C-alpha cells in the first residue's frame, strides 16, 4: 500500500496526469480544451490518490488506472471507445517504459535498494519524479510539434 502525500498529488500526480492526457489525445491529433484537460487530470490524479490508499498489491492501481484513463478519454475527451483504450494503454505503457529506464538509475544514484524506499519521503519522491516528467513532456511536445506516431490513421 502506498499513501501518496498531498504535496505529491499536487506537484507530481496532477502534472503527470496532464501530460498523459495530452500525450493520449495527441496520438489522435486532438487538442483538448484547457477545461477538459484540467477536469480530466484532476479526476485522474484524485482517483489515483485514493486507489493507492487501498490495500492492493503494486500494479493493481496501474490496471485500474487504465480503466480510469480510458473512461476519461472516452467520456471527457470524446474519443471513441477503441481510441480511448489505445490512448490509455499507449500512455501508460510509455510511462512504464520511462520508469523502467529511470527508476533503477535513480535508485542507484540515491543509494536505495528499491525505488519504494523513497515513498515515505515526499521530497525524495518528488525529486525522483522530475526526470520522468521532463522526458514525458519532451515526448508529448515532440508528438504535438511533429504530429508523428499514429497520425489519425486508425
Amino acid at each position, binding site marked *: 500500500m502506498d499513501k501518496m502525500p498531498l504535496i505529491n498529488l499536487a506537484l507530481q500526480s496532477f502534472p503527470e496526469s496532464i501530460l498523459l492526457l495530452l500525450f493520449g489525445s495527441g496520438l489522435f491529433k486532438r487538442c483538448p480544451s484547457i477545461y477538459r484537460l484540467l477536469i480530466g487530470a484532476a479526476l485522474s490524479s484524485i482517483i489515483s490518490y485514493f486507489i493507492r490508499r487501498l490495500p492492493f498489491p503494486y500494479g493493481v492501481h496501474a490496471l485500474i488506472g487504465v480503466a480510469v484513463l480510458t473512461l476519461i478519454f472516452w467520456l471527457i475527451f470524446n474519443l471513441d471507445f477503441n481510441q480511448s483504450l489505445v490512448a490509455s494503454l499507449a500512455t501508460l505503457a510509455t510511462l512504464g517504459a520511462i520508469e*523502467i529506464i529511470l527508476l533503477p538509475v535513480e535508485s542507484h544514484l540515491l543509494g536505495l535498494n528499491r525505488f519504494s524506499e523513497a515513498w515515505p519521503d515526499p521530497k525524495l519522491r518528488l525529486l525522483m519524479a522530475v526526470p520522468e516528467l521532463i522526458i514525458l513532456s519532451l515526448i508529448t511536445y515532440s508528438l504535438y510539434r511533429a504530429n508523428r506516431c499514429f497520425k489519425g490513421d486508425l
Partner: protein
Amino acid sequence: MATANHSYWLIAALLGQSFLINIAVQNLQLSQYAFYKPIVIGANLVSLSFYLMILLLIKKILELRRQQQLLEQKETELDSVQSLLRTVRAQRHDIINHLDTVYALLSLGKEVLAREYASHLVQIAGNTSHLIWLEQPVIAAFLQNKLNQAIAKEITMYIDVSTDLKDLAVKPYALVTILGNLLENAMEAVETLPPGQRQIELEISRANLYYLFTVSNSGPPLDSAIKDVIFQPGVSTKGPDRGLGLATVKEVVENHGGTIEVEADPVTFRIKFPATIQQG
C-alpha cells in the same frame, strides 16, 4: 470500419502486453529479488525491448492500414473510371445510329431538325470527352451521372472542363457535396421553364494559383433580398423546410480554404479553391 476496429484491438492487445510486462518488472524491482542486480537489469532490458518492438509492430500495422485504405480508394476510383468508359463505349456504339438519323433527316430536307439533333449529340459527346480528362475519376463519374439526369429532365447541361484538377486539395466527397447541391438547385430552378430554355452551364478551369468552378443556369434571376442572405441556413426560394444546401456548400467551401460568390442575373455561383502544387 470493421478493419479499423480490428487494428484498434490488435494495437490495444500489443500495448496491453507491454504494459503487463512492465508491471511485472516493476514488481520484481520491489521484491526480494531486487538485490540481484543482473536479474533486474535483464528484466528491464526485456521489458524495454518488448516495448520498442511493439512500437515497431504498431508502425507496421498502421502502414498496412494506410495502404489498405489507399487500395480501397483506388478501387472506388477504378469503378468510376470503368463506369465512364462504359458510357463512352455505349456512345461510340450508338454513333452510327445517330449518324443514320441525321442523314435521314437531311435526306428528307428537315435541316432544322437535323441541326438540333446533331447539336444535342455534340453536347453529349463533348461533355463526356471533357470529363475523361479529369484526374479525379469520382468527380468525372458524378458529373456523368448528373448529365444523364439532366438529359432525362430535358435540360441542356454544358460542361466545360479546361483543367485536370490534379493539384486540387479538396477531397472528392467534398467536391461532390458542393457541385451536387449547386447542380441540384440549378436543375430545380430551370425545371419550370419550357424544355428549350432549360440550360445549365458548369465551367471548371484553372488560373495560376486557383481553381474556378462556375455554375450558372437560365432560371429566374435572384431577388436582391434573397441574394444577400442566400448562404444562411433556412433561406430558400423553394419554400419552408428548405435552404440547408447552400449553407452546407458555403461551409464545405470555406473549410477547404475556398471562397464562394453569387450573381443574381443570370444566377451564377463562382467558387475559387487555391491550387496546391504537388511535390515531386
